[in-house]
């Protein structure tokens, strides 16, 4: 399996990353590409940008561990995870998950599993930068209970586990 994990400040090209994963392959029948994008609002309030802080080394290791877990759960042929850090403006991509498999169910499930994990368990923290003149100028994004329960459901025995076809 081809695995690519990158943490970077620079912007990425989701289409190019997905194309790279399937280049010269004829065994891949399904590619799921998820891109998380920075919105211009948080909780209904306008924002100027997000700044993502992360725990270097731990973040890479944790993502790698979960990619391995995804591989153990589903018959994957390729996984790419890119997570940006630093300042990110509205409209820009934050995170990319690409999963490739012979069939769609494994690709969909693995992409969802990896995203649920990244939202709630990977050591990243989002800080909101408010538009000029707002007070406070910066606030930390509150964790959402829905993200926690989304990550939690993969701990329970999954009815989709092993669903490959």
């Amino acid at each position, binding site marked *: 399996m081809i695995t690519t994990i990158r943490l970077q400040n620079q912007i990425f090209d989701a289409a190019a990353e997905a194309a790279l994963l399937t280049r010269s392959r004829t065994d891949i029948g399904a590619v799921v590409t998820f891109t*998380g994008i920075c919105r211009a609002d948080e909780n209904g309030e306008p924002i100027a940008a997000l700044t*993502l*802080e*992360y*725990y270097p*080394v*731990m973040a890479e*290791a*944790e993502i790698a561990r979960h990619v391995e877990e995804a591989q153990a759960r589903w018959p994957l042929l390729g996984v790419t995870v890119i*997570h940006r850090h630093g300042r990110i403006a509205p409209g820009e991509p*934050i*995170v990319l998950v690409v999963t490739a498999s012979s069939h769609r169910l494994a690709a969909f499930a693995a992409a969802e599993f990896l*995203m649920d994990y*990244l*939202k*709630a*368990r*990977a*050591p*990243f*923290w*989002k*800080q909101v930068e408010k538009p000029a003149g707002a007070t406070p100028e910066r606030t*930390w*994004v*509150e*964790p959402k209970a829905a*993200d*926690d329960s989304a990550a939690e459901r993969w701990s329970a025995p999954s009815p989709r586990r092993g669903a490959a076809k």
Partner: protein
Amino acid sequence: MKVRYFAWVRERIGLAEEDIEPPAGIATVGELLAWLAQRGDGYAYAFENPKVIRAAIDKSHVRSDARIEGAGEIAFFPPMTGG
């Protein structure tokens, strides 16, 4: 041992990392957090609600009852908000 702080834990304490020597008898992550919390106003503020604080030993998530003996690096941080 080295302790590292992230996000608002880091901001409230005013440090990203420091070397500490906790007294004998501090055996778990939870006990270390309580000991750190009494080191000053910033620490008290950062750790005012210990239940929400997450921890890692040597870059792996741990619970508050994890033992700190032999740890090289312990990190404290808020719930994660990546993705």
